[in-house]
């Protein structure tokens, strides 16, 4: 069992992503907007010869679209055969965690509780574990 988690920053807060869903972390130089697409889609960007969809993680939390700073990091995930870049403020570390994820506390604001899947405890820090599958297609869980 792989217990490695990628620690990243979304809207100023540190979160954890399971590394088994992460392909790589890349820097995004520029993106092309997708007109009339859902607001959490920041655009398209090219990774070598592939075209990836750039997901604005901050939008889920703050409701404010982020302005892409050239060179900003994105976490590349592959979900359902499609590659996405999750645009984050920063990528900090990879840590190993033991133990089970704890359920989400009830008082989380809507944005965080949507993207979160549980709490993770490592040493003396607690991270919100987020769900990339929700980020790339929020309608799936709402419908379910």
């Amino acid at each position, binding site marked *: 069992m792989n217990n490695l988690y990628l620690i990243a920053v979304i809207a100023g807060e540190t979160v954890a992503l399971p590394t088994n869903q992460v392909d790589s972390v890349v820097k995004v130089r*520029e*993106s*092309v*907007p*997708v*007109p*009339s*697409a*859902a607001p959490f*889609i920041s655009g*398209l*960007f*090219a990774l*070598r*010869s*592939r*075209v990836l*969809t750039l997901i604005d993680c901050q939008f889920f939390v703050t409701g404010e679209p982020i302005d892409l700073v050239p060179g900003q990091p994105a976490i590349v995930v592959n979900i*359902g055969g*499609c590659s*996405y870049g999750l645009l984050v403020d920063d990528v900090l570390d990879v840590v190993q965690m033991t133990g089970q994820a704890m359920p989400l506390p009830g008082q989380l604001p809507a944005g965080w509780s949507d993207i979160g899947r549980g709490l993770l405890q490592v040493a003396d820090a607690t991270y919100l574990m987020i769900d990339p599958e929700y980020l*790339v*297609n929020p*309608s799936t869980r709402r419908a379910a």
Partner: protein
Amino acid sequence: MDDLVQEFIAETRETLDALASELVLWEQDPQDSERLASIFRFVHTVKGSCGFLNLPRFERLSHAAEDVLAQVRDGRREASAALVDAVLAVIDRIGELIIVMETGEALPDGSDADLIAALGRSDEPLEIAQPKAAPLPDDARGAARRQAIRSIRVPLDLIDHLMNGVSDMVLARNEVARCLRDEQNGASLDNAFERLSACIADMRDAIGQTRMQRIERIFSPMPRLVRDLCADLGKQVDLRTSGNNVELDREMIEMIRDPLTHIIRNSIDHGIESPAARRIIGKPETGRLNISARQSGNQILIEIADDGRGIDTDKLMSRALTSKVRNAAEINALSERARLELIFAPGLSTADSVTAVSGRGVGMDVVRSNIERIGGSIDLENNPGKGLRVILRVPLTLTIIPCLTVRAGGQEFAMPRSAIREILFDTNNQVRIQQVGGCDLAHIRGECLPYVALETLLGLELNPDPSSSYRTIITVNAASDLRYALGVEEVIDHEELVVRPGAPVIMADGLYAGTTLPDNGRPMLLLDPLGLAHRAQLNERGRLDPSTGEDAQATPVPDGGSALLFRETSGDLRLIALSAVERVEDVSTDRLAIAAGQVRVSIDGESRPVIGLSAVPAESHVKLLHLTDGRMQLMYSVDDVIDIVRLPAKVEPAPRPGLVGGIALLGDLQLEVLDVHWIFSSQGGAPSESERPACRLIGQDDPWTRNILAPLVAAAGYRPILTSADADDDGVDAVISIIVGDAAPAPVALRGQIIRLSDSISSTGQDCDTIYRYDRAALLGRLIAGQTRQAG
């Protein structure tokens, strides 16, 4: 048939491998419905495949297992350990038989009655008999297996990986190309690079090809399937397929094979009635089943139409009630269409009895989920009592599509060229855009089309300061009966793009058909013409002008084909055959120059003469027609392009051959029609190198001969060949030989004329074949005379 069996073996083996872990998990927790469903699907698939491959042993086994699993799924039976064992034993037996088949042997005789009986009992643990195949020594079996495998199933991941790699190479190549352009490098580097480019292009094509297949591959086993089904069910069906040569991504072929088979089974089993029943209701005894495939824009449409009894929605609803898929309140609230769609609910079937063919309610739900997984859709057109038409729409993915790139709101988009009929500027006086009742209509040459701006559809800002004062209008054929005019900022280029599906969140809108990465490395969205029409709500309005177009085409008047009406720089209106015009382009005047007494343009990496200009014009841009005869390219400068017209059948020939080949009467206007043949014959330049007569230059290989004499000879229309005086006859049949210098000896055997070029003026005139080396007039005179003689 053989390769179908091979494929069945490979496929079953693969699924067995994938299933192994599921089986173990199911064994641990027999209540797990998800595992049960995947095992059920496997057994069902095996049953389906061996049904038409004529493998009765497999069929018996899988049918028995499926029976039991269906009972478990419906809760009519407990998944006891003994039952699980029995099912596992059946799956193991299938695996063993597959291995036997793979070695190319005949299937061993032997009934599987023991296993099938075991499935019936549920309590006592069972003893599994060993398969009755005589055990082969391991190495012999391995050798036989090596022989049997002739094809390789390459994982799609690998092909995708290759494709990505090649695309990377292409990008790298482009980068190198840029470097080469910026810094002057040697010719050898250029050549090597050319080779590399050709190589890469070739490889990309080849790899792209490996993914494309004709739909024939699925259609060809259909007749057999239909025949066997008919024999089993006592029905008569006439199967017709069309569109066999439609090409589809290999992955798509794999994905639609099973759904298509399911639909056909359903049609024959439930749709088409027995001959007796058909006779009673006055239908011909033989039912009809039409399967057709065609490409429509960026989709492949596969239509399966039968003339059977259609879907009985009432029966479907009562089934839905009894099987508790929906409750009564839900069902009553459903629209007719939604009721029809109950057929896609899992676990529902309209068949009265479970047969070996179908009727277990696996099928339509799997069909739909398979089709939707590849981004397709399935539509039903139910005609109770008369037939059912199933329409599968699957996208074209990873295909290279010729596209037009357009700009709107400062962003670039691609549009499949197949949907584009015409491109016009809104400054064209044939175009009138008018607002009627809140929507815009474009009148183009008497045809009235709904007009929408792409920016409006996509929610983009109209560029307030466009670089050009006019907008471009594209008339789009979104579907056979749906046309509209789309306004964009400008049309940029025509490119062939590798299109891939976008993320589901992007594709969900329906506005986009995919994403692509052009050479500039900025991702681009491919617009879906039909999706745009939906967004503009054009479908509801129907067609605005049914009288034009079709009617005119129905009674074609013989005429001289289409011609382009344009204004010359002098202001005269003239016509040119449209087939000779490749495209119209605005070219920056910077790219024009006077060279060799002609105005020439540097375009597409070549220098081409421009006809119709005597000097570089003062304006910043000129409008050029690209003329082509399929081989040569010429540019023709015009003031403006006005319209496309039909030429009358009779064109009055011009009295003298020249630029104007004839006069056409359009209404009351007499218009000159350009003679395309004359243009190419007069401007086409010299014939190619190998067609020219040879001229041997004999003497030392000195700079004067090479750099001064040879170009003069070449300009006179010869192919200069430098040889030394003592060289043997190299087989070239020179028309003229020129001996350079007084000292050089004349070779013995020379055919054709001989000219000696003298170093000094004094020695000339001794005989008429000796010319002073700078007596240009005399030398050229001889050369031209020689050429006319050659021509004569």
